[in-house]
């Protein structure tokens, strides 16, 4: 006998994500899901963003890491609330892990929470965390084929940053091929070419995220 089910396999994650989203809305907190490969510069981007915006907005960080709290240690100097989620080998965060750590924050007293997802371009794209939007970060040292290889992330991100633009001349990153693929996958997305460490075009990103926070 056949039993019809017709259900989303990821319903449990989706339902919890919707709970998180409602909680954020009630408290008027922007929740940003930052996704990139390992080594693209997620923690450095957060470091720069905290430096620039921590005196203007009340910011908190959720650090998703496979192991260790090294990323959190790097951001400790900013003295903002940071919670670490160790996935112990897991390749992505899910909405249940986010929901569990939210009580550690005083949400009423926050404007924005940045979630640094586990470094990976595939798995994190498939798990809704209840975020306001996804921020995709990619870097010139990774190669120019990422948008076409990982369309889910580049299609769904509300904003995309290409980091390490200062290293462009030392790599074989083909900028026009990258832009062509990105345009094919998501031609309408806001996109900034930056260097977090050399402070190139970072004002464009700060302006964009500033506007997102004030219009939340």
């Amino acid at each position, binding site marked *: 006998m056949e*039993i019809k089910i*017709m259900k989303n*396999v*990821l319903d449990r994650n989706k339902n919890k994500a919707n709970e998180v989203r409602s909680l954020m809305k009630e408290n008027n907190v922007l929740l940003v899901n930052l996704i990139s490969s390992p080594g693209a510069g997620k923690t450095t981007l957060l470091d720069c963003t905290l430096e620039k915006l921590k005196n203007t907005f009340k910011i908190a960080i959720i650090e998703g890491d496979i192991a260790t709290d090294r990323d959190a240690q790097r951001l400790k100097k900013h003295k903002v609330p940071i919670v670490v989620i160790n996935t112990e080998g897991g390749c992505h965060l899910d909405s249940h892990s986010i929901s569990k750590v939210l009580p550690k924050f005083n949400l009423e007293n926050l404007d924005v929470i940045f979630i640094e997802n586990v470094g990976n371009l595939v*798995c994190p794209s*498939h798990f809704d965390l209840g975020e306001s939007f996804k921020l995709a970060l990619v870097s010139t040292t990774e190669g120019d084929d990422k948008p076409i290889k990982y*369309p889910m992330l580049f299609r769904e991100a509300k904003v995309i940053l290409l980091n390490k633009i200062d290293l462009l001349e030392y790599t074989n990153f083909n900028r026009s091929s990258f832009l062509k693929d990105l345009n*094919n996958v998501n*031609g*309408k997305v806001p996109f900034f070419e930056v260097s977090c460490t050399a402070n190139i075009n970072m004002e464009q990103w700060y302006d964009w995220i500033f506007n997102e926070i004030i219009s939340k």
Partner: protein
Amino acid sequence: MHELKIAEELIIIVLKVAESENLKKITKVNIQFGKMIQIVPDIFRFVFESGVKGTIAKNARLKLEILPIKFACKKCKAETEIEDLLFVCSFCGSNDLELIQGRETIIESIEGEK
């Protein structure tokens, strides 16, 4: 390896439904995944089979259908199915598109014996 988490969630649903329907044995599990989910079918089968060991679904066959990517153009309203990953309307060339199929993770049905 998002296959692992998706398979875990699938197995929870399969066993729960089988229990509520008083099935003694699950023979087939029918699922549909969108192409955007980027499931590797062999990996998915492997993790599913590992996960159902020792349960009433241990010999279940997994029928996995991959759904193509489809979108509706917000400009000319045409619907297009794409083979490659060119998210451009083939009728009017607009890139203002709404995805209408391609990111599903659906369990359609299970088959079994009472």
